[in-house]
């Protein structure tokens, strides 16, 4: 099953700021691409449960997301830097 992955305004702003400020932009882009790929295919198998949501780490990023299985949808609520 393929999920549609969408991002909130907070997530978009966090990723934009990370891109603007990160020492290694390539690493940020690679991590966001990998997160998108994983969440499209295995959102409920990757990451760990957290306060009713899930969090997944792909250094240098960690993402907080929500799986909506009935809609085949994943909502990314925020990103943070882990390095």
């Amino acid at each position, binding site marked *: 099953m393929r999920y549609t*992955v*969408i991002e*909130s*305004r*907070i997530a978009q702003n966090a990723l*934009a*700021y990370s891109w*603007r*400020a990160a020492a290694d932009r390539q690493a940020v882009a690679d991590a966001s691409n990998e997160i998108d790929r994983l969440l499209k295919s295995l959102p409920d198998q990757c990451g760990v449960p957290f306060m009713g949501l899930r969090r997944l780490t792909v250094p240098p990023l960690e993402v907080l997301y929500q799986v909506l299985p009935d809609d085949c949808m994943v*909502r990314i609520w925020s990103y943070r830097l882990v390095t």
Partner: protein
Amino acid sequence: MVPFTVPDPVRAFLRDATGRTIVRDPNGNVLGFFAPVKPEEPLPNGQAPRLIDKRLNGEPGDECVQRVLRQPAEPVQLCDEAGNVIGYFAPVPPDRAEFVAGAFPPPDPTKEGEDPLADLRADFDMAAIEREMASNDKWYTLAEVYEHILSITPEPYWRGYLQAQIDRLKERDRCATQ
């Protein structure tokens, strides 16, 4: 990228912009994003290069700088009168103004000198996320997020990289819906 010749006051204003720079008007609104032609090297300890936030403050010459930097409608290569490239500038497109204001608010003067990434290194702000959950009605695909980021990225290399990523993601999503 189109060359754009800038006069002395603009070059003087950007002289100490030795890394990625956010340029603001006197009210704190972002005019655009500047990157020098020679990028600042990452620090030896792996820390990010200094993220520079420069605000015009109404000094003599600032009006000229503001007038000149408001002229380009798309990213340009800034040059001196002799044609030497001094850097790249991406103005904020009108349709991205809300995004830029949200992602790049004016810096908090009480946090001057602190790590500019401190908020991003902190754990998730669950209160902010709950507020977003209650009010959010805007959602973006990764390709759309990259389009936003492309609009604020002046460096030709990274613009090419982002455009390639956008094309790849759109093609992937197009194939997935067929």
